[in-house]
Each structure stands twice: as structure tokens, then as C-alpha cells.
């Protein structure tokens, strides 16, 4: 029986269970599901110690946080105590974080207990968790298929009910796409709503920290803790996030036409249409809308993001920490070999693309052009949000694909992000909502997108549909 955050908190408060029991249960489930390879490390010792502390405080009648005793998992690119922070790379194989990410600190302050660190594509580069240096994570519904990515491990531990929620980072769909592939909610907030401090940076202008959960209500509970300005991250906004009840007021929703055409599997289109039908049945207005620059978003993304990636990964040079090649003779060799040994192929590909588009002579032709196109895309979004409360698309063009199916064709792999990339480029909040399954029982997700700072209303809308579909 799947337990929500609300259930766990109620049981603990009623004395029917303890933080320690919840943590032990989660650890046991994690071991039981080891074959999915969703977790890179368990943080057992620290988790049990924290659980005992919380139980002692409960027993003493002291005040505990809103998430006291609730176990969770973090993606292994969040700096967190209790285990190394590897970003699923060999480069950071033995890297013990000296500080924790702001969001981990906040969740711990609220009493939540991190029990492990989940697998990802190394440095969050990928859409399948096949780029992990420590092996692939298997889909929760079909172990021959991918978990999606890059936050594949966090999606699978949530779908398998190991924990009620897990943290992910979303740069171009890394939370939403694996949520879709594993039949759960996956939320990417407005850029700036949540601190990025202490998370291994991928692309500074689109990285967002969000979460996976099995209900919209749980998403809201977690985001309420994670949200807020952080004096360690200058791009964070003053906190505006207040969870709201599902709105009874009818929303005006636009379906992005360009996401429903060629390249989208029939199964996915059908499920999306069904979802639209249920929205209408619930009294919402749904129209088809057009975003002419949307088909260019993937091209923009794969210029801007690799550019930022090449910059953000420059610090991994083997000089101060992380992997350092042995037996080298020159400085150039030290850099070259350490980085060659530490990065996976996809990391290198993105560093190469990024270095290329930033090179003298190409910066104007690629990077600057992509930024101009990005401004146009943002303009189209804000134009639509003058008329519509929310926009809708499938989360991904397909259901989870087979392990190894796309690994030889990076462009095909990148196409998996085609729906999730546009809101990332525009900094908009977006959520992947479970929207049924195909005939083979593989989950399908629908993406709801809101205007800047509409996070609470967006999560509430996704929750209202959950209720409606009963």
C-alpha cells in the first residue's frame, strides 16, 4: 500500500509508527529493489541517527518540523552528508561534501530524513540515466526499459514506493521526463523559486531544483519547504510559494499544437487527448494554441546548455579535488587525462559542443543567435499567458524506451526532451502529471506549464485532475 507524506506524518504524530520505523522500512525496501539500481549510496547510519533524534524529540513533546520522520532520497548531484556526492561520475568518485545543499538543509530542518542518494546521468547529462558511470537504472514498470533521466534514480525510488518523495534537478526536463516514464508527479518550479546552492551545476540559466512525489499534495508540501530566497544564490526570488487548495474556478488552458503532431507516439497523443477531455469534463476551457518558435527550442537548448556546461565543468581539473590522473608528465597531460578518465562520453560531447559555440568567431553565430531565439520563445509564452492560465503538452513524445535503444544516436536521445525544454528556456514552472498508460502498461505523462510564479496554482490544478479522475 503506497503511503503519502500526509499518511506518514499522521501515523507518526498518532504514535502508530516512529521515524526510526519509517526509515528502517524505507531502507529495507531500497535493499529489496536493489536490482533496479536506482540508488548509488544509502546514508543509513546518518539516517537512523537522525530518526532517533526526531523520535526522542517527539517523545519529549518537543516541536518537530512539518516533515518530521519522512524519509526521502536525493539525486546524487546534491551535496549531502552521509555518503559521497559523485554526480554519478568517476571524477567525483570519492568526493565528500563539506557543506550541504540549501534545499537538503531546509528539508532536514523540517525533519525529513535522507536515506540515500540516487543514480543519474553523469553530471545530469542525459535523458535515460544510461550515462551514469555506475550503471543504468531500470524503469519501475518494465526493467528492460530506461528510467528516463537525468533524475532516473529519484523517479524510480518514488514510483517503487521506497520513499514518498525524492529530489531531482531539472535543466531541460530531467525531473518531468522520468516522472512521465514512471507514472508519478515530477515538478520543476519557476527559475529562482528554489535555491541551486550546493547542487553540482549543469546549466546555470536553466537549472531548477524540484521533486518527485505520488500526489500533487505531496509535491506542494515538499516545495513549500524547498521554496524561498537564499543569500547563497543570487538568482533566487523572495518566497511567494503558498500551497493552495485545488481551484474550483474554471481555468483556460491552451494545448500547444506543435507538441501534438509528427514525432509524437499515437499512444502518447491518445492519452493526452483523454486528459484534455477530462479537463473539459471538469469544467475547464481547453483550446489549441500555436507557438511557431517552439520547434526551434531544442536547437536553442543544445547550444545554450552545452555552452554553460562547458563552463561549469571547467573546474573539474584534477588539481584541488576529484580524480587526478597518475603518471603524467606535463600540466596539459594532467588536465587532459584527468578529465578524460573522469568524464563519460556524453559529458565530453557537451563540453565539445559548448566550447565550439563559445569560440571566437562562432559565439555570435551560435550562442548569441540562440539567446535571441530564446527571447522570442519567451515572448511567445508570455503572449499566450495573456490569454491562457496554463499551457499543456505531452511530457515526452514517447513512453519509456528500451535500454540501449537510443544510446548510439544522441540526436534521437535529445528529441526525448523536445516538450520539456521550452519551459526550461523560459524559466517557467512545469509539472508532469500521470495521465494513464499505454496498452503495454507503460505510464504516460502530461505536462502542464504555468506563467512565472504560478507554481502553487499549477500544482493545485494538477491535483484537482487527480481527484477528478478518481
Amino acid at each position, binding site marked *: 500500500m503506497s503511503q503519502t507524506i500526509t499518511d506518514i506524518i499522521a501515523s507518526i504524530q498518532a504514535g502508530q509508527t516512529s521515524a526510526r520505523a519509517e526509515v528502517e522500512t524505507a531502507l529495507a525496501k531500497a535493499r529489496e529493489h536493489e536490482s533496479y539500481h536506482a540508488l548509488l549510496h544509502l546514508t543509513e547510519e546518518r539516517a537512523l541517527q537522525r530518526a532517533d533524534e526526531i523520535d526522542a524529540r517527539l517523545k519529549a513533546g518537543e516541536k518537530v518540523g512539518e516533515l518530521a520522520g519522512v524519509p526521502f532520497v536525493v539525486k546524487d548531484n546534491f551535496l549531502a552528508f552521509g555518503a559521497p556526492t559523485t554526480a554519478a561520475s568517476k571524477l567525483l568518485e570519492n568526493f565528500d561534501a563539506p557543506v550541504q545543499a540549501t534545499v537538503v538543509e531546509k528539508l532536514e530542518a523540517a525533519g525529513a530524513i535522507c536515506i540515500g542518494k540516487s543514480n543519474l546521468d553523469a553530471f545530469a547529462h542525459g535523458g535515460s540515466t544510461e550515462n551514469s558511470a555506475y550503471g543504468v537504472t531500470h524503469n519501475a514498470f518494465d526493467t528492460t526499459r530506461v528510467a528516463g533521466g537525468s533524475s532516473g534514480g529519484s523517479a524510480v525510488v518514488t514510483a517503487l514506493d521506497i520513499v514518498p518523495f525524492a529530489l531531482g534537478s531539472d535543466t531541460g526536463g530531467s525531473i518531468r521526463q522520468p516522472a512521465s516514464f514512471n507514472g508519478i508527479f515530477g515538478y520543476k518550479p519557476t527559475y529562482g523559486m528554489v535555491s541551486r546552492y550546493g547542487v*553540482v551545476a549543469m546549466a546555470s540559466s536553466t537549472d531548477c531544483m524540484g521533486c518527485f512525489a505520488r500526489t500533487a499534495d505531496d509535491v506542494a508540501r515538499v516545495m513549500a519547504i524547498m521554496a524561498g530566497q537564499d*543569500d547563497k544564490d*543570487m538568482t533566487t526570488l523572495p518566497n511567494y510559494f503558498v500551497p493552495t487548495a485545488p481551484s474550483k474556478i474554471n481555468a483556460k488552458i491552451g494545448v500547444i499544437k506543435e507538441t501534438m503532431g509528427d514525432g509524437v507516439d499515437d499512444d502518447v497523443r491518445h492519452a493526452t487527448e483523454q486528459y484534455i477531455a477530462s479537463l473539459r469534463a471538469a469544467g475547464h476551457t481547453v483550446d489549441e494554441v500555436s507557438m511557431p518558435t517552439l520547434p526551434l527550442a531544442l536547437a536553442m537548448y543544445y547550444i545554450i546548455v552545452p555552452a554553460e556546461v*562547458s563552463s561549469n565543468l571547467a573546474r573539474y581539473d584534477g588539481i*584541488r579535488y576529484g580524480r587526478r590522473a597518475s603518471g603524467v608528465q606535463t600540466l596539459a597531460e594532467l588536465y587532459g587525462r584527468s578529465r578524460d578518465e573522469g568524464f563519460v562520453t556524453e559529458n565530453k560531447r557537451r563540453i565539445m559542443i559548448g566550447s565550439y559555440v563559445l569560440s571566437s568567431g562562432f559565439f555570435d553565430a551560435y550562442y548569441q543567435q540562440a539567446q535571441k531565439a530564446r527571447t522570442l520563445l519567451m515572448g511567445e509564452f508570455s503572449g499566450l499567458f495573456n490569454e491562457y492560465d496554463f499551457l499543456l503538452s505531452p511530457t515526452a513524445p514517447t513512453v519509456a524506451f528500451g535500454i540501449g535503444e537510443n544510446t548510439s544516436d544522441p540526436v534521437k536521445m535529445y528529441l526525448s526532451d523536445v516538450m520539456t525544454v521550452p519551459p526550461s528556456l523560459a524559466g517557467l514552472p512545469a509539472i508532469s502529471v500521470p495521465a494513464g498508460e499505454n496498452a503495454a502498461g507503460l505510464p504516460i505523462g502530461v505536462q502542464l506549464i504555468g506563467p512565472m510564479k504560478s507554481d502553487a496554482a499549477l500544482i493545485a490544478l494538477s491535483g484537482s485532475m487527480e481527484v477528478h479522475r478518481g
Partner: protein
Amino acid sequence: MSILKSEIFDTYEMTIGVECHVQLATKTKLFSPADNDARDADPNSKVHPIDFGLPGMLPVLNRHAVDLAIRAGKALNAEIANISRFDRKHYFYPDLPKGYQTTQMYQPIILAGYVEAPLEDGSSVRVRVHHAHMEEDAGKLTHFGGYSLVDLNRAGTPLIEIVSEPDIHSAAEARAYATELHRLMTYAGVTHGDLYHGNMRFDVNVSVAKKGAAELGKRAEVKNLNSFRSVERAAEYEFRRQVELLESGERVVQETRGWSDDSGMTTSQRSKEDAQDYRYMPDADIPPIVLTDEEIAEIQADMPMLPGEFRDTLRGAGLDFAMTETALAITDAKVRDFLVEIAAATNGEVRRRILNWLVIDVQGKVSAGDDTWEGKQLLPDHIVQLAEMAEKNEISSNSAVTVLFEMLSSGDAPRMIAEAKNLLQVSDENAIGEIVDAVMAHEASAASIADIKAGKDKAIGYLVGQVMKQSQGKANPALAQKLIRERL
């Protein structure tokens, strides 16, 4: 080194542009809370995870550094950009922890301005400033035989880089520009200006061409000069080196050169062909610096007098070039303000005396390292009193200087000090008259008296000297002379 005649050098002109890195006087680093003062600190003891380039760390812009840049802008007669941004400049080197330097490539905070640098002949050279931008410093490497050690104490130190136009045409002008920049930045409180610790470092771009030529020659950049003298010497050396190359039919290569104070020579470090592609890009971790005109004005309103105005004030008060430049070397803004106050409140001999005391006597000792302005009691009423006492011959000039130093350190009134030290001159006619009588009656004075009577008026000096001696220096010499004459 020269084998060429000076007439040949005279047919060439050099053109110089200067890039100057100024270390800002902030408590903490540009993007981290680490201590910005690493003098005498153990290696890597002033390093925050942000400066260390750990995964997940984000920069937090030090607002004080922005304020100092705004002050620097005023000192450079430059507009401040209402919107400026940070960019990343990429290269791999072990002293650069993030693999990029955070700088301002596209939208610097300080826009075009100029510096008016005084020359020794009393004229000046106006050097336009193209722009100045904020950036962080890198760490430091120390090389040994087979290995190098990295010290990141300096990594992340806030700098502004001031980029001049190529408006400088002699080594002396280059030196004057560097010196004036240093004054401007220290007067404005932008930097501590400690050259020994590299608080200001100059890169000098030198090219030569025949006088009147339409195009500039290829330039060589001499990097990391840390004294005014080395700026001048390196420019002079480059001028001669490049002229000699051209005269012998060779070409000047565009390159980076290093300077050695010991050898007095520049040497090639890196040619343009090795130039790196820095792959500049906007830094998305740092929002733009947005400043309203009101904010800028408010920060700039609270600034001490800058060297140009200080110089004009002193010259207007009658100080000559040399004394004015000595006064400009006073590093303590409170002392400079005091000079300005004196110049405004006094005039004539009193003003001349006081300015002489402060600039020649006190600053002379300070610049020689024999004294310090620190703790000096700068009380305008007292120093004016002392000057008036000297003016009225109530105290001798020498004694006045003694009282001056005592007064500046104790803060006591000058008359009180003079009385306590028994330095007041005696102007009592009866008292001095008695001494005069005694001196003139002495047999040793007979010859002098005779000389005076014979028309050798200079001989009176001996008699006055004797009176002074008898009075232990306290007699008013003018009065003594008058009384001697009456008795002749």
C-alpha cells in the same frame, strides 16, 4: 645597449596604452565571505569553498566592491553604467580554481573617462580612459624544480581593471599617468595602494612609429609592472628596443613581454599566435548590477577631495610645484583636509608658515620614515596661534618647530608648551637692556663696537649673537639690535 645616435630616436614617437589592475579595499572577496587581506597569511588559509571552486558553489557579489567601483568611476571622471554585467573568461591554469575568471567583458561598470596627469615641467597630459571593469584575481603559483605549489589566498580578490586609450607618448608621461592613477585610487579610498603587495599592477602596451606616421606600429605588452619607476623604465626600454629593431630592418612582433627590475630589460613571454580563445560568455549565476542615478550620486557624494582639486587648492595658496607634489604624497585624507582647511582660513605669512611646517617639516619626516601622521592632533586654532607667535617674534623660528611637534603630539596649546619649555622670547626692554649693557661693556666686544663705528655695520651681528647667547636664545633679536644701536 644603444648603437644608434639619439637623432635617430628623435625621429620616432612611442604610443602607450596602460591597463591597470587595482585591488579593492574590501573586507571580503568579490564573491565569497573569505578575508580579502592575505598579507602574511599562511598559504590557502583565506579560501572559502566558493573561491576553491567546489562543486555546487555559487558567487555572491560583494556590494562593497560595487560601491568602491562607483567611487573609482568618479575619480576617473567617468560615467557609471546603470546596468552592468559579469562574464566568464575561460582558461585552464592551476591558479584559476573555476576554470574561468569572472570579469566584465561586455558591459563594464565604469564607462569612458579621463585622467589629467601632471608632468614635472608644470604642464600635464590628459589620458582618456576607455572603460574600467570589475573582476576577480587569480591565485598564485610558486614553481620549484619538478613541481609547483598553488596558493589560492588571492583567488577571488576584487579588482578593477582600468583600460586607458593610447594617449601616452613618452616614458615620463607613462610614469606620470601611473602615479596619478595611484593617487586617484588611494584618495578615493578605492584601494590601500600598497604597491609592494601588488595592490596596483600595470600592463604597458608600447608601440613605436616614425613621427607623423598615419598608422601605429605593432605593439608589445609588458605585463605586471608594480612600481612607477618600472613603468617608466620598461616603456623607455621598449621604445629603444623597438626603434632598434625597425632601424635594423626587422619587425616588431605583437607579444606579451615580462620586465626584470634587476636586468632592466623586457623578455618575450608569449606571442600573439599563442593567444588563447577565452570563450567569453555571460555569467548566469550573477544578476546584472542595476544602479539608479540617485544611488550613484549618493555614493559619490561622500568622497574626499581628489588630487586635482587638492593640487589646485595648494597652488592657489602659493605653494610651488615641488612643495605641492610633496603635499600630494600625504596618504592620510584627514591631513590633506587639514591642509585645505588651513589654506582656506588663513593667508599671508601665517599661511605660508603653516603650510611650510606641515609639508616640509612634518611630511618631510613622515616620507623619510622618521615620523607618522597617525595620532597627530590637527587643531587649526593652535597651529594658527603658533604661527602668529612666530610672526610677532614671540618665539624663534627654530623654537616654533620644536613647539609644533610637541603640539601635534600632545594637543596642548602652543603658548603653554613654549612657556613650559621656556622658549618664549624676551621682549622686555629693561631685561634685554641689562644684557646689552653687560655685553657692550665686555672687553671682547670692543673691537666690534669700533668696527661698527667705522662703518662696518655687519659687525653688529657679533653683538646680537652675544646677547642671544647670554639670554639663552630667548631675547628678541630685533629688539636686541635696536637697543645696541641706541647705545652706540
